């Protein structure tokens, strides 16, 4: 049985910090973040790019980190949900989620929050329908969508 080429040293810029580790080329960005760099806000749920829980921003774009290899993310600006709180001050997106209780177990929440942040960064005037479309690729199992709609409505009113 062949085991592929060995680990290679990579540097990733995660939430503004340069982090280095050794990963085999087959390691996804998600697994590199979670298993090698202890950045665990991006969650592993579906294993195949269908649930959105692993969503991160790569150069400002919402990306399923399980569908990108860590090696492909070198030199790019990677941002996870952890970047949406600075000195205890919440970004408006997670803040709206907390205020409206748009989370229960919370395992899907960072993925939703990051996807919405990316959509609002791209278009701060996004409508509710546009923001709903931005999280069309995310799944919640506890059923927090009603509260999520309220959070989205508040974000739109306040201009993200």
């Amino acid at each position, binding site marked *: 049985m062949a*085991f592929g080429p060995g680990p290679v040293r990579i540097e990733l810029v995660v939430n503004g910090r340069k982090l280095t580790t050794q990963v085999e080329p087959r390691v996804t960005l998600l697994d590199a973040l*979670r298993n090698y760099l202890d950045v665990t806000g991006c*969650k592993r749920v579906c*294993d195949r790019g269908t649930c959105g829980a692993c969503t991160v921003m790569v150069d400002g774009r919402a990306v399923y980190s399980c569908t990108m290899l860590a090696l492909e993310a070198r030199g790019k600006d990677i941002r996870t949900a952890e970047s949406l*709180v600075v000195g205890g001050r919440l970004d408006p997106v997670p803040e709206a989620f907390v205020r409206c*209780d748009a989370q229960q177990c919370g395992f899907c929440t960072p993925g939703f929050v990051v996807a919405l942040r990316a959509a609002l960064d791209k278009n701060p005037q996004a409508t509710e329908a546009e923001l709903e479309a931005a999280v069309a690729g995310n799944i919640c199992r506890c059923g927090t969508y009603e509260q999520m709609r309220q959070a989205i409505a508040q974000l739109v009113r306040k201009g993200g």
Partner: protein
Amino acid sequence: MAEGWPKQRRVLGSKVRRLDGPAKATGLAKYTYDINRPGMLHGVIVRCPYAHARIKAIDSTATRKTPGFRALTILGVSRDGVVVAVEGNQLTYTPAAKKKAGQEERITVTVNERVTLIKNHKVVSLKEVQVGDRLTIEVEQDAIGRELFFAGEEIAAVAADTEEHARDAARALRVEYEVLEHVVAEDEVLKDRNKRTVPAPSNYSEGKAATQGDVEAGFREADAVVEATYGVPVISHQCLESHGLVAEWTADGGLTVWASTQATVATAQQLAARFGLPAARVNCITHYMGGGFGSKFGPDVQGFAAAELARRAGAPVKIMLDREAEITTAGNRPSAIGTVKIGGKKDGTITAYAVDCYGTPGYTGGATVNLNLLPYVYTDAIPNWKRSHAVVYINAGAARAMRAPGHPQNCVLTEFAIDDLAARLGIDPLIIRRKNLPPNNPKAPPNSWAARRNTIYNEQIDIAVQLSRWKEKWHPPGQGNQVGSRRYGIGMALHTWGGFAAGQPNECFVIIGRDGSIVARTSTQDLGTGQRTVTAVVVAEILGQDPASIITEIGESRFGQSSGSGGSTTCPSQAPAALRAAQAARDELFQKVAPKVQADPADLTIAPGKVVDRKTGREWTWKEFCARLGMEEARGRGVWSLGIANEPGNEDISSGQVGGVQVAEVSVDVETGLVRVHHIVAVQDCGLVVNRLTCESQVAGGVIMGLNYALFEECIRDRVTGRQLNADMEFYKLGGLGDMPKITVHLQDMPERGVIGIGEPPVISTAAAVGNAVFNALGVRVPFLPLTPWRVLQTLAQGGKIR
């Protein structure tokens, strides 16, 4: 009589934000899946690829040579024993579990690299073994002959330095199988009841049956009788955080696990029992938990395996299930298919109801409906009924409890029939529901469910009718609005649930520090229900604080006694425990400080942020007062259980039994078969609400899960290969934001009934209400869930008449 809930409530029942909301929304909360311990290894389980097979050969030689390999365990074959002889490479031992009393069995093993010996939680070589040692002995070849009953059944587990290496090592394990006949569809068992592809004597097991009154006479009395077959499929819990844990043996021989569990205490106890440790030496930590819904009550195969691998490797091991394993092995909700006959009079009186049903719990397990509760909420009103149930075993993972076990199935088997009967009688189904509600029992205690249930249901129906504009929107089936190819309809269903305190004691501890800080500590777990915040709300109410200032330490088994979070028992157990703990801590604070401020403890009382002497009018800020504790602190312990709740005078602290009414408004596209739900009204009685924000979230979340049952969810198995075709999140459908209707939640407060758990009830009736709304839209019953476009079109094509 003990002091109950405060009559004047400042925080209780208000909307309090989840204390852990910011940590969860920004990814800082560490769930089990997120735990990375120094030197931690990753574990992977080797699973049977066939639906039914027997192990013919097994060889780990290649596995042990893969890069990064650290430990292997062959599951289900290890034995504990006492060494009686060591000669050359031969080990002879007496098994700890004796065959028969008085008959001593001796087993001799040739020790090689495929035999593992464990002494004092460490792998040892034969040289380190002495006569009299107590060992765990695992002989790989003992797995030969083991019968495996479903695709995904666990065979072995490996640990390696990285997850990639662990997968390589798992793939390298050579297992040869003798493939046996399997069955993965209920109807194949019904065709041949003598099949035997499961541990039971046959795949078909006649279940229980019961009768009340004279059913045949009841049907003769009826103005109309309807008979039809309805069904719900096997579905999966689909917890977003999969099952699993991280196991770490401590230097002093204890075990710490971070587990995604609904029961920290039971998980620790089961691990302690398995590894022969005092229960106090195992700590199970569940600070954050990514959903359970009834499927996560113990270490499970993967939990024991992680702890086993960790002691063999001498390093922490994490095993989290991948999505396929999560769906195929970690819990299915059983199916239920029933032929229902119902008869009634023109005034809506149901004269008789008969149901003959079956379902599958997978390869093992029991009933798949709650047979004692059929015809569901109407059981006590319908004079003549008959019910019977059979269990059909298939080669699939075993069923686990899922959010109100048996109730969504019961609800469909009852509520679908009611609407079909109403259509035949030509009346609004609301008339039948009202006419057959269970009666109030005037002899029951005045605030109890039994004394008030008829009144509560009637009020709930009134509220639901108003909020859904039922009178304006209901029309005879198939005769409603149509816009293009879309037909509109509205449907209703009722449910019931318990929600009492747990039988086992639940503790909470409150510690007031001399700096005024307050810690609330309990071993219970917050599955996402908001229990952490509930505990803080109760303590804050009693001690005059802001809930956000309460330091909540929850989710560690070492924090005391608690029960598993099942049956909606957690809030009605833990909120009263927190109440008692806060009251006890307050009383101790008064006792300790009163002499220092020349006050009588009986005169002291708490107001928001301060302590007041009612006699003299003196006041101290909370911090000032607590500072008088000097070198001490004030502590209180609270304990609650069903037994305590049932003591006289406690019925307004916690109780149980709730009802609920839901109404769904849908449209169905008769060209594409697509069902869209536009609005759901959920009316739920809920006793004393502790945190209105999270309580409403629970109800809305239940409705959404019920909507998923109605429209999307189904485990689909391939009859030929015996494997599940949609063991993923792509073809196992769950609704997204765009699929969601408007949801109107109405909480029916009844503070006089104390705290009642409502995690489960709101999930029950949604699917039946949606199914009835589709019937109302089309005038044709789509009898099986989920109501996919294919099923809708198939029903229409098979002679369904639409206007």
